[in-house]
């Protein structure tokens, strides 16, 4: 989580404790939901009869500082606890260590609104599920510094990963790497043929850092050195969980999920939108874009390469660079009362000050580097417009809220 955002949002609720963060340009959101069973003791609300559930956010750095030296923590701490003391305005993390030592960390917190990612996996047209190892092995072929990668569903049931090159001029200077995975490497493939999306690989790789387990019998306890750039992939591999990728059309966010009995992880990344396709279904223009690898793949690389060359693949008509990376979704969806995580579709605000970057080292920024914001889609509800220009405060409603869905207010007041 620390790799994505600077603030850690803690949200206790009926279904568990949720730790969330969002990056500064609102193009990446991640959440870890720990079910009550994960903990030895879990009390979501205060002792009052109305059980007010408080959300708060703390500085990521402060929180991580508590767990600074993971190997030594694992040796000395036998019990840990997190308490929220609203009146003292402190989030208390207490580590009970060997020899009767108790370390108490008092972190200042800020009250905040609910931080929600604008996604709904139910509405995603395509999904893939694979053991994390397969995906980890796939991304290893791409350089560490690579910004964006395009995931596509090609012909013959092959899934492709390709590094994204922004414009024609760069094509003649940049090495293009493409990887094809057969359908049977995945546990489940339900994709729209010809569909593809482009997202930032860096955040996928180096997103959620491992949250140290504090309860015995937790399924997540591989020894890892602290603070090394662990990707969601590394996390998934370590916990032996299959990774599911949900995606829809270019421009709509891609959601990576990990699920197990006590933990639900979501990573939502913005994807490059394709102005040409607009709101058309991907098959309309997607099918022509991807080459059809020949079927006798394994045996004859030669014919595959010939097929690659003679196919209708047109680089130029691929996803053209878009000045914005909108995470917008057309209209708020119905809230599903069972799922606290994926509720409304609502616009994660794409606006950023011009000099903020979407991804490290990449010149484009979400919302455009000085370029005008795209006009709000006419389908958007009037509430979306208000998100552009300021947040709407919801009085701390815990569970599923109705259409009045809001992103946490940006404490920097950037817009």
């Amino acid at each position, binding site marked *: 989580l620390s790799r994505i955002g600077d603030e850690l949002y803690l949200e206790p609720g009926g279904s568990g404790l949720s730790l969330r963060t969002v990056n500064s340009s609102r193009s990446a959101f991640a959440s870890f939901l720990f079910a009550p069973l994960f903990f030895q003791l879990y009390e979501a609300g205060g002792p009052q009869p109305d059980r007010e559930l408080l959300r708060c956010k703390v500085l990521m750095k402060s929180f991580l500082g508590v767990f600074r030296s993971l190997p030594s923590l694992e040796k000395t701490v036998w019990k840990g606890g997190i308490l929220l003391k609203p009146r003292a305005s402190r989030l208390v993390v207490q580590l009970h260590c060997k020899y009767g030592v108790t370390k108490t960390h008092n972190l200042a917190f800020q009250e905040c609104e609910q931080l929600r990612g604008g996604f709904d996996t139910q509405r995603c047209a395509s999904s893939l599920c694979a053991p994390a190892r397969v995906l980890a092995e796939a991304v290893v072929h791409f350089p560490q510094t690579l910004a964006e990668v395009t995931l596509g569903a090609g012909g013959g049931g092959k899934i492709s990963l390709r590094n994204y090159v922004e414009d024609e001029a760069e*094509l*003649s200077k940049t*090495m293009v790497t493409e*990887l*094809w995975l*057969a*359908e049977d490497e995945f546990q489940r493939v339900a994709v729209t043929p010809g569909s593809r999306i482009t997202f930032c690989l860096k955040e996928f790789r180096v997103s959620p850092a491992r949250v140290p387990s504090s309860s015995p019998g937790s399924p997540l306890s591989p020894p890892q050195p602290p603070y090394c750039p662990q990707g969601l992939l590394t996390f998934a591999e370590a916990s032996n969980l299959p990774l599911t990728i949900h995606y829809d059309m270019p421009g709509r966010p891609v959601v990576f999920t990990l699920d197990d009995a006590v933990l639900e992880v979501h990573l939502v990344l913005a994807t490059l939108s394709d102005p040409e396709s607009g709101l058309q279904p991907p098959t309309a223009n997607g099918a022509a874009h991807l080459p059809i690898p020949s079927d006798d793949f394994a045996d004859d*690389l030669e014919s*595959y*390469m010939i097929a690659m060359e003679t196919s209708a693949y047109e680089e130029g008509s691929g996803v053209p660079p878009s000045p914005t990376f909108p995470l917008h979704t057309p209209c708020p969806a119905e809230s599903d009362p069972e799922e606290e995580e994926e509720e409304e579709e609502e616009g994660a605000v794409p606006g950023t000050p011009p000099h903020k970057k979407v991804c490290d080292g990449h010149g484009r920024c979400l919302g455009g580097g000085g370029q005008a914001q795209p006009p709000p889609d006419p389908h958007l509800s009037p509430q979306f417009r208000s998100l552009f220009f300021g947040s709407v405060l919801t009085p701390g409603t815990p569970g599923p809220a109705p259409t009045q869905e809001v992103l946490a207010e940006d404490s920097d007041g950037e817009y």
Partner: protein
Amino acid sequence: MRFRAKIVDLACLNHFSRVINTIAKLAKTCTLRLTVSKLYFILADKVANGGVSLWCELCQGNFFDEFQMEGVAAEHNEIYLELVPENLSRALKTAQSAKAVKIKLTNKHCPCLRVAVELPSISSSSRIVTHDIPVGVIPRRLWNDFREPSVPDFDVSIYLPVLKTMKSVVERMKNLSNSIVIEANLSGEMNLKIETDLVSVTTHFKDLGNPPWASEDGCQSSAQDRDLESMAEARIDIKKLQQLLAGQQVNPTKALCNIVSKRIVHFILLHEDVSLQYFIPALA
């Protein structure tokens, strides 16, 4: 103009990758010359390179299971390409467990070397990773720029000490000075010296041996008349030397250098199937 090659043997692939890694450490961009029997990685001595030049020669038969090329024309059956060796190095880096690697010259939108790696996978069909490395085709009129450099008329020729030792010495010295003096004599002694305002450091190597060079046409080279003890020296950029030494991943069968006093140092590193020559000019 066509080029197509395939490597199936893992050992050959690793060996080839190592050569590419070495080249990548020495040059950001270089020329790849393909002939029917050999591959050459060439860096011509332009001012932009700091005057260094590189000539690396491989016998294709020692690496490739299949190798077909057709040059620009029948009488000039060669291909000269300009490429960034780092790209090739990266493409091969994750191919260490590959079933096969195919390299092909293609020209879809721009000339590229397409490296296709077939990887084993648990599924029925293999995983295929393709890397399209953009290359520049060098026209025939410029081929003269890339001729094999001749061995200079050196003053001293001497075998190098164990490269690992030399590398660690040079690396330490690099922190202290920008230039290093290599001096050697025909008695198998070599010194590496740096001198700054605060300190001078010299490392002495002895008993290195001097390679016997057969003089051509029976005429005496300048080295023959030389006093055995007298040192020939050249001051060179220490970074270039460090890059050369750091790039060596495998110990060469033979490693030697020829020093032309105050002019140039010519390094020759020979492996079984690869020869590498590197020229570092002396600093003014």
